[in-house]
């Protein structure tokens, strides 16, 4: 007997990896990138290449197709909301459905913050979109899944900027005395 299966056996013992999103991209139907968040270190060149390929792949898919696809070694989970595609890359062991709902929760957060969000809100307030994302996901992992808590954090920050506090500008000088 030859033992091809032994060699296969060797490959079956895989090490479970923890859930980690690799990156999240938001792009329009025209393929314009609206937001990009990378949770793994990649060069700018590599990021652009991935973005180009992935946008093309996802836009080529028909509606009603399934929201998941294999791409390189990753699993892509995407969903379209109005004119925007939300697209996440996760690893082989990761849970597609929960990722789909991460996307949805993020959309809800944007919606609540901007008041029925549209693509323009994200274009003009891209920095806010990033802040909200950071409150919700950190390092590719869910940090806070309660909608109320995330929005509270963002609103507190918004409040902070209105009460400008000039008094304690003490550090401004000290940081530079290296």
């Amino acid at each position, binding site marked *: 007997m030859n033992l091809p299966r032994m*060699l296969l056996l060797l490959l079956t013992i895989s090490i479970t990896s923890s859930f980690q999103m690799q990156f999240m991209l938001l792009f329009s139907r025209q393929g314009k990138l609206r937001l990009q968040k990378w949770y793994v270190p990649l060069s700018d060149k590599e990021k652009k290449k991935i973005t180009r390929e992935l946008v093309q792949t996802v836009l080529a898919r028909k509606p009603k197709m399934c929201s998941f696809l294999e791409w390189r070694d990753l699993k892509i989970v995407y969903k379209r909301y109005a004119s925007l595609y939300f697209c996440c890359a996760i690893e082989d062991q990761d849970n597609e459905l929960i990722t789909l709902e991460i996307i949805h929760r993020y959309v809800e957060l944007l919606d609540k913050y901007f008041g029925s969000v549209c693509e323009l809100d994200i274009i003009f307030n891209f920095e806010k979109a990033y802040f909200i994302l950071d409150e919700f996901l950190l390092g590719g992992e869910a940090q806070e899944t309660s909608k109320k808590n995330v929005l509270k954090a963002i609103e507190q920050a918004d409040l902070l900027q209105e009460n400008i506090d000039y008094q304690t500008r003490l550090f401004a000088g000290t940081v530079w005395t290296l």
Partner: protein
Amino acid sequence: MPAVSKGDGMRGLAVFISDIRNCKSKEAEIKRINKELANIRSKFKGDKALDGYSKKKYVCKLLFIFLLGHDIDFGHMEAVNLLSSNKYTEKQIGYLFISVLVNSNSELIRLINNAIKNDLSSRNPTFMCLALHCIANVGSREMAEAFASEIPRILVAGDTMDSVKQSAALCLLRLYKTSPDLVLMGEWTSRVVHLLNDQHMGVVTAAISLITCLSQKNPDEFKTCVSLAVSRLSRIVSSASTDLQDYTYYFVPAPWLSCKLLRLLQCYPPPEDGAVKGRLVECLETILNKAQEPPKSKKVQHSNAKNAILFEAIALIIHYDSEPNLLVRACNQLGQFLQHRETNLRYLALESMCTLASSEFSHEAVKTHIETVINALKTERDVSVRQRAADLLYAMCDRSNAKQIVAEMLSYLETADYSIREEMVLKVAILAEKYAVDYSWYVDTILNLIRIAGDYVSEEVWYRVIQIVINRDDVQGYAAKTVFEALQAPACHENMVKVGGYILGEFGNLIAGDPRSSPLVQFNLLHSKFHLCSVPTRALLLSAYIKFINLFPETKATIQEVLRCDSQIRNSDVELQQRAVEYLKLSSIASTDVLATVLEEMPPFPERESSILAKLKKKKGPGAVSVTEMEDGKREGGELNGGGDRGPDASAMAASNASTPSPSADLLGIRPAAPVSAAPASVGSLLVDVFSEAGPAASSAAVNDEGFLSSAPPSEDPAPPLSEADELLNKFVCKNNGVLFENQLLQIGIKSEYRQNLGRMYLFYGNKTSVQFASFTTTVSYPGELQSQLNVQSKPVEPLVEGGAQIQQVLNIECLTDFSEAPLLNIKFRYGGALQNLTLKLPVTINKFFQPTEMASQDFFQRWKQLSQPQQEAQKIFKANNSMDTEVLKAKLLGLGMALLDNVDPNPENYVCAGVIQTKGQQVGCLLRLEPNAQAQMYRLTLRCSKDSVSRRLCELLAEQF
């Protein structure tokens, strides 16, 4: 303009964005951007100090420009400036810019770290979170060095705010992933586990990601998390949908946390404590039950969240693989999903069922869904779903349904998407081989495959069919007949011509009795395809022709004429010309005896891994195809390609090196690659003998590409002496998996994994014969001082290994301190009464306990200098034994376990690595430099380690690798 602008909007920014959006062309956009960049540059350079608001606005514009895809080479300093602003938005924009555009080599890093340090100690939770987010987003080594010890403190401090704890946990996770060596376990570790009990669900959600990652690396230290996770899960699962307030998502209580808890449990075996296990099984049952309840909402979010938990629970059930009842229930649940109207669910059910098919408890249950899956393959509109269906069919295939599945896959191939054809072809070829009971079915299937999807039939596939036909004399006549018929088609694929040429050349005589396939008819048929074929195929056909001359003397004149014509003998292709000349000469000079010796029938191929499998694995990556095979290994005995009935054939073994048409051996890198250099030698020497009477005319006939002419001299196959052990050991220095040893009786495969100072090695002992091995025992022993340096624990193996079966043994390895010797593995068993006794070295070498360490150039040189005592350095200059190809070298160095550092050595030809060896007692830092000299084919290897014995040992080990 935006509908809402909360906080303080930046008017200038909004205007700029509008302008960009109004640009009609790419050129206009670039022009507008350049104008803006010039403006910002002048503002930043201007004499007038900018106020915080302006600075923020310009930095934000730069960020926007960068995100549009343009390069930004200034503004970093201004962004860093913003970090120390006390105005929150300014700070926030500063951090955002740094997170997106950070340059880890930047001089600015120290300034940034300083600002972060200030914010971390500000006791202002909002500022602290911003700083933590920045660390988590950048996650560079410099940041890890600066903050890896500070963050655990923040995480477990009693007075830290919940939101800060959440950020701190995930921030630490990121640092641990980038620089595990810098995050030291300590007193905080046990307190982190108890965050699973935290009242704040957000804290638990964040902390559990960290705990999961840490448990994977240090399972023992974190094993208390199992019972905590089970009780937390149980509380969530049994809670009413409103109990968890804002953590309930569309009527599903805490779906993210539930999934993470189930994922954490997958890092561990089933709980040993009966009560905990009972509770967990109850949870899993509840989750399965809930799937049957009517939905609480029609929203897709509700069902997605609920099913996300369900799939994660099923993954845990499969991971445990010990509860038949749960496995079968999981399978039934997935069966329901197979027919669900949601494409997503059908996709996931197919995917998940693939893994279920590998469990002996649920394999049969999975098989009951075969019709649905076949239907999915035929009717799904989405290619990614069809792909999953094909994967599942492959996974559920066994002897009972192979014919049906192979037929369905073949018929699907006719219309399959181009993107998945090659893989489908490989799968069909593998299944056909694996489950063939009669070989005519196998031959038919492969020829069909070539007919339907010839373009996608890779070399491995047709090599394999030839290997099998050659090894099975009961199928040779049938194969010749079938291939002859297939070649009758007016347009047949070139791969068919190749198979036809080879098989008729070898076995055409078996059908030559029939006047419809007389030798000349066969020849004319083959030759009619000749002109349409590529050079390699023509070369193959020429070899077939010379075999015809040997098989059928009556064709000699015709064939000689063909060889003699200008288009052959003066062909512009050197290979073809050479073959034509040599074959012509050979046929006219050599006596029939010589001819018959040279062109003797191919000897059987040795037993070997199917090259097709290797190819599929390579295509799909490890693990992708493995599941079913494992199963079959348990279930099956007989094999298609040769079996116990044929005694091991020493001459075939030797010949294989020279004559195997397949490069299968190196595809996986798992066998010692067929020594390519040896092949021409053996062929050559044989040919020299043959031609010594005939004169030197054809003495250079090294026609070994397909190995037609070779039949190597028989050689003694020596019993494996212990002296080979070192060589075998050396093969595993840079890799963890592969075949450790193989002889006529036994094959030993290894798969190993290492984490810190611990390792686990799976040994697979395969009985290659059809006879049972009795009294099979294995013992591990420690030569010399090794006893006190390394600890290897193993469970005894089953004393009986059935013919064709494989048994597995797990060794747990702990490195106590650094070591130089390898542990010995002694194997004893009785084969047909004779005692077999064999001792090998286990490939456990000190480098297995490496953790890679990334560092920047200056750090490297600093450390290098610190390790300057003469005995800390070991150096060796040696001749290259293997290819000096960059990629090969890199792969080896990575396999070694150290981090390969770029941009350290000023000479880009050189390689520099760094790593830390983890032993129980201490950590040994190691730096390596390898300087190749391609011209001289030499290397200089230098190692500096904090412990001199390690430098010496590593140097010794590595000098054999390159």
